[in-house]
């Protein structure tokens, strides 16, 4: 009985922490999005300079700018990973809430289905090198 009580107490402590973590992931995503937008805005200004120099004939030929554009897409990959992490925490929180209320580990079939069908990896790439291209 004492064991069951301590498990419930542990769940009561973990649940709010997970919700805070989920909220912080949302904030991190917002900060990264803002930083990426600022960088892109700078790219726009750089492009403007090239256009002025090349009299409107600017094409992305500058290798450094191209590499920067490729690397900046880390923001999209990180954003997707954060969204996936946040969803996983949301599912775990739901299961814990249910367990703390009912004392049972089982949860609604909707969440069980969500957990089972959630991809193991939301983003497969491990670096920011440009990806494969396949024409059908």
């Amino acid at each position: 009985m004492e064991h069951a009580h301590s498990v419930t107490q542990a769940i009561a402590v973990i649940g709010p922490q997970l919700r805070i973590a989920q909220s912080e992931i949302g904030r991190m995503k917002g900060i990264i999005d803002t930083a990426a937008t600022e960088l892109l805005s700078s790219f726009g200004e750089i492009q403007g300079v090239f256009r002025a120099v090349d009299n409107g004939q600017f094409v992305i030929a500058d290798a450094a700018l191209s590499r920067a554009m490729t690397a900046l897409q880390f923001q999209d990959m990180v954003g997707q990973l954060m969204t996936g992490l946040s969803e996983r925490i949301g599912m775990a929180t739901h299961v814990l809430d249910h367990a703390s209320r009912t004392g049972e580990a089982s949860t609604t079939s909707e969440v069980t289905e969500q957990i089972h069908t959630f991809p193991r990896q939301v983003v497969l790439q491990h670096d920011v090198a440009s990806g494969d291209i396949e024409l059908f």
Partner: protein
Amino acid sequence: MLSILAVDDSPSIRQMVSFTLKSAGYSVIEAADGTEGLAKAKEKAVNLVLTDQNMPLMDGITLVKNLRGLPMYATTPILILTTESSDDMKAKGRAAGATGWLVKPFDPVRLVEIVKKVIR
């Protein structure tokens, strides 16, 4: 001017795609998900569609299927630009009628090369 519809739920990716394609001389229309993309594609015929796969409301493969169901998009090149790189997903994209599968991150120079190769 040839026009391209860029569909992606990430504002920064849309911005990067637009930046790249406009710099190469194309007109770019942006949409934030498959539903908006389909609506904009119906409003004005474009010469190429470049879409993400994982998006809210309507994913990229569903968008491809919907577009292929429209006579005006029966032969228009449709490229999927996504972080998804599994063979299974590629096969689904191909079966839906996609012209090609590009895995993010994209290299702007390569993207323009591919667009030039397939656009009509």
